[in-house]
């Protein structure tokens, strides 16, 4: 494999609610793989993906791992920021104090820029 000697920018647009479907988990797995192979990852939460970064998730009652806890720990892999589309947040009547501490609100122009400068965009 020829991965380590080139750096590619990847944007992940996480648009699905966690737990109900497997999409959020797949997106998370891609983010970790990309970070492990030293690619630059822009991890953006929009639409129902906003629900992935809600604070105080505890998935033990449904025998799952808490997605929020893993997202919180992504700094270990060099993914320091979780970008949240401010428009999606507003539409769901949520505020940043209900979200994980790592989130950073971004507007549509910032997300457009991520998409533009990335080689590869994945929406899940």
């Amino acid at each position: 494999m020829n991965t380590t000697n080139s750096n590619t920018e990847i944007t992940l647009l996480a648009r699905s609610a966690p737990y109900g479907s497997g999409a959020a988990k797949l997106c998370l797995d891609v983010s970790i793989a990309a970070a492990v192979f030293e690619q630059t990852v822009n991890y953006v939460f929009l639409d129902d993906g906003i629900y992935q970064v809600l604070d105080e998730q505890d998935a033990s009652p449904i025998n799952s791992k808490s997605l929020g806890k893993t997202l919180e720990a992504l700094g270990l892999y060099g993914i320091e920021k979780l970008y949240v589309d401010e428009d999606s947040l507003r539409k769901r009547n949520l505020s940043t104090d209900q979200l994980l501490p790592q989130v950073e609100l971004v507007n549509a122009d910032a997300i457009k820029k991520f998409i533009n400068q990335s080689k590869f965009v994945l929406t899940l």
Partner: protein
Amino acid sequence: MKFSLVVYSAPYSSQSAATALHFAQQLLIQGHEIYRLFFFGDGVHNASKLAVVSQDETHIQQQWDSLIAENNIDSVVCVSSALKRGIINLEESNRHDLESISLSDSSEIAGLGQLIDASINSDRLVNFG
């Protein structure tokens, strides 16, 4: 151009698997290279060799298998998606005494590194799901 395709959906449950197959066939017709097929999530079911499809329906798994084998394409199912969905090769079958194999001979099991590698080394990565 060098393309890689990522397929997230199972045949018959979503049209996307058939769309991806059609797109892949057209890529080869136009002389493009397929660097890798990566089956992810429910997409791993495209690489099942146990599907029995009636005559009047398209046998999507078989068409993938032919396309991959005839054109010698690198085809990967994601290990973490495949095993828990019952898509296993000889090695996993033996390890767990399952006495059956469900993965097509034309695909192999590998990790997500192969997806990242494809995103770096292809001109285009196209997702179907």
